[in-house]
């Protein structure tokens, strides 16, 4: 079947980022088509978790984007469309995060981090050791203290991508691989080519996640997006025993002390459906899908250390995904000055669910020629060009 379509903007990628770009672009009045080689959420969006965290980010551009994004997530969750309440459909929960430290040294590092975050607008409440169990009754004894972050929330990523796409009203074309970014004689974008025909549009958004570098290459530009593998463990369904997102701050101290043997620092969280999610590991092993028992054991160890009762709880499954990361750990967001009409929205590493709304919002502003709400300079897609040169 050959189709020829025309629209205002083509979004490549039906993951969380593409869905959010489609939503905000459509709301800005643009006619949007989303294309994916697989189904909805078939990429990293369907292989990770849905933490919307501000707690794990140091003050700077990423934290600003996270704060904007969390505000937008909360707004979306409140919306009641004609068909259903978005918040419930995407399993949005503003449950808050609790970061705990096991040593005085770790607590000092965490307290420092929180102080800086507060200045950037993060709500961070110090929790003394003897109050930790008020928040999390099943936490291990002997912890030094922690910080509570009420803004940390969560969604179910695949549902969020699917429902944002649905409410956007954008045209969704799955099962179509983009093989070419079409350009005019002067080099600007005029559409894309797929195995099922061409789609003409003056703007193309690269929301291809971990494969964003390949899509950029189709437009003749380089974008260094690389895979970083992560495993998640899922337990049997349980009655709610873990109330917040809980993770250990020890990695903050480890980074500060430049320790050689770094630890996995899994986030432990209950879900609306009952299972507890434990994730996630981080490794740079390319696109290697093979199962690694040692990595999963490390996750389990970290989780049991925080919540001893988990020792008896069964893991039902585990899965792996590939975070899209860029060398400076910041995403590429905004117009590509090298190719007029090409916009990038990829490379969000371990925060692409959380940062999706802000990213979509900023992309829609850029598509509409408006001044972006936050400075896009740190996310410039061509920022690595100079280094290479």
């Amino acid at each position, binding site marked *: 079947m050959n189709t020829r379509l025309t629209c205002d903007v083509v979004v490549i990628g*039906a993951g969380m980022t593409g869905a959010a770009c489609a939503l905000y672009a459509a709301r800005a009045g643009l006619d949007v088509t989303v294309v994916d080689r*697989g*189904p*909805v*959420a078939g990429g990293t969006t*369907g292989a990770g*978790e849905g933490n919307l*965290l501000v707690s*794990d980010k140091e003050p700077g551009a990423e934290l600003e984007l996270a704060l904007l994004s969390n505000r937008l997530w909360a707004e979306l969750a409140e919306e009641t469309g004609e068909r259903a309440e978005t918040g419930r459909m995407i399993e949005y929960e503003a449950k808050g995060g609790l970061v705990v430290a096991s040593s005085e040294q770790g607590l000092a590092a965490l307290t420092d981090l929180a102080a800086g975050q507060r200045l950037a607008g993060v709500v961070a409440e110090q929790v003394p050791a003897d109050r930790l169990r008020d928040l999390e009754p099943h936490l291990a004894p002997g912890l030094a203290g922690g910080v509570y972050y009420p803004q940390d929330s969560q969604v179910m990523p*695949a*549902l969020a991508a*699917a429902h944002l*796409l*649905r409410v956007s009203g954008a045209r*969704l074309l*799955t*099962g179509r691989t983009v093989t070419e970014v079409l350009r005019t004689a002067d080099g600007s974008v005029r559409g894309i080519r797929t195995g099922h025909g061409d789609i003409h549009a003056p703007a193309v958004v690269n929301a291809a996640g971990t494969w964003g570098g390949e899509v950029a290459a189709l437009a003749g530009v380089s974008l260094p997006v690389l895979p970083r593998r992560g495993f998640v*463990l899922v*337990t*049997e369904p349980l009655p709610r025993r873990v109330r917040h997102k809980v*993770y250990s701050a020890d*990695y903050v101290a*480890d980074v500060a002390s430049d320790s050689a*043997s*770094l*630890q*996995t*620092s*899994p*986030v432990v969280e209950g879900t609306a*459906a009952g*299972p507890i999610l*434990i*994730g*996630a*590991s*981080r*490794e*740079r092993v390319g696109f290697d899908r093979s*199962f690694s*028992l*040692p*990595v*999963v*054991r*490390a996750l*389990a*160890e970290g*989780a*049991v250390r925080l919540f001893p009762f988990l*020792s*008896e*709880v*069964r*893991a*039902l*499954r585990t*899965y792996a995904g590939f975070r899209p990361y860029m060398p400076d750990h910041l995403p590429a967001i905004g117009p590509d000055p090298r190719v007029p009409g090409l916009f990038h929205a990829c490379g969000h590493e*371990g*925060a692409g669910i959380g940062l999706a709304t802000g990213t979509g919002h900023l992309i829609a502003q850029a598509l509409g020629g408006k001044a972006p709400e936050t400075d896009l300079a740190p996310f410039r897609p061509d920022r690595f060009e100079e280094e290479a040169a």
Partner: protein
Amino acid sequence: MRTELAVVGAGPAGLAASLAAAARGVHVTLIDAAEDAGGQFYRQPAAGLGARRPRALHHQWRTWERLRDGLAASSTVRHLTGHHVWCVERNSASSGASGRSERSAAFGVHALLGRFQDEPVTVHADAVLLATGGYEKVLPFPGWTLPGVVTAGGAQAMLKGGLVVPGRTAVVAGTGPLLLPVATGLAAAGVQVAALVESADPKGLVRRLPALAAKLPEAAGYASRLLRHRVPFMAGHTVVEAHGEDRLEAVTVAALDPAGRVRPGTGRRIPCDTLAVGHGMLPHTDLAETLGCRVDGVNVQVDDEQRTDVPGVWAAGETTGIGGAALALAEGHIAGRSIAARLQGTAPDPREWAAAASSRTRLRQFFAAVDSVCAPPAHWTEQVTDDTVVCRCEEVRAGTVREAVHGLGAGDLRTVKLLTRAGMGWCQGRVCGPAVAGLAGCDLTPTRRPFARPVPLGVLARTDHPAEADHTTEEGPS
């Protein structure tokens, strides 16, 4: 625990392989979740229940006796019962050589035992044979979750366990050769079998049956037994609905047209209190997938020696393709001989297993022919109403799956699961996988299940893994 060969699965394939390898001097550890050897086929009547005439049910009883006695007499096969293998791990340090220390063992076979399956045991082995068999495939239809509806295998197990109550009325339905022993077995145990409903096209059956019967004398035996017990055989029919308030009271059976659609107006109600239903079998491939073995379609791929493409890993029996007990025996025998030679550093001589190889060829052809005739109706999903539960663990209905595909853009088993939860429960999609694939119109691809059994986090978290001590991970919460 240290062994040369770890065999997972003590069914016909695993038993034959263990004995064949042991006869060549290999130290074998045979591991099975069940309390007794025998697998699905030779599952013994539970001691004390006094099941009558096991010979009548177990036609290859003598083969079984030989295997059982061989196992009991063997001093080199250690049989671990009640061991649920949750993962077979390939140790990266070693490359399948026959080193002796635990550290250099090529594989760690991780099992759970005890009443609560929470005691960890690891068997370290130089070579592994996967003989985990298969499991039943059941497609949903309205009413299929009513008490009284059982799988064909469930009925067979009830029979072999001596738990069948004579005087009841049963319908046996679905497709495939398993239905025959189930129907004749039930009838012989005094159950009134009101119908054997096979969806295969009668013309195809008539065309193929004589050839099939010639290849497998067993089939003719079943046919005569069906006649003797006056079991009505309804080919080209399917059960479209099971009825009942709290439990099964009747089924509606209808005729199929050549395209595999239900013919309107042909529905007929048959009262019964048991419906044994099966749509064939699917191989267990979890352990193989996790080891990285090639799985083609739904079968673990093996070469003429039953080797997978992962060095040191063999597979035999139904995990490599559904084909009955005799085929499993032949494959197991070949695997055992191949493993013995390879572990001893020699190339095996295929002439050693010429007889097994020729029955393997014959039986594979036979089952390929069976497969070409016995298939669920092409349009079975049309009978599945939107409110029919498809995933029993998570109670996901057909309408929800359809909405995920047509309304939300799901396109494969994984994304349907993510958007509906179908396949996320205890069985991890083993039961509902074929149904969801059918409803979604996608291929049934083996789902990755790194844990073949649920495993306690405390077992995972144990820190005494010397081989893994050098592993470092990176920091960060997400």
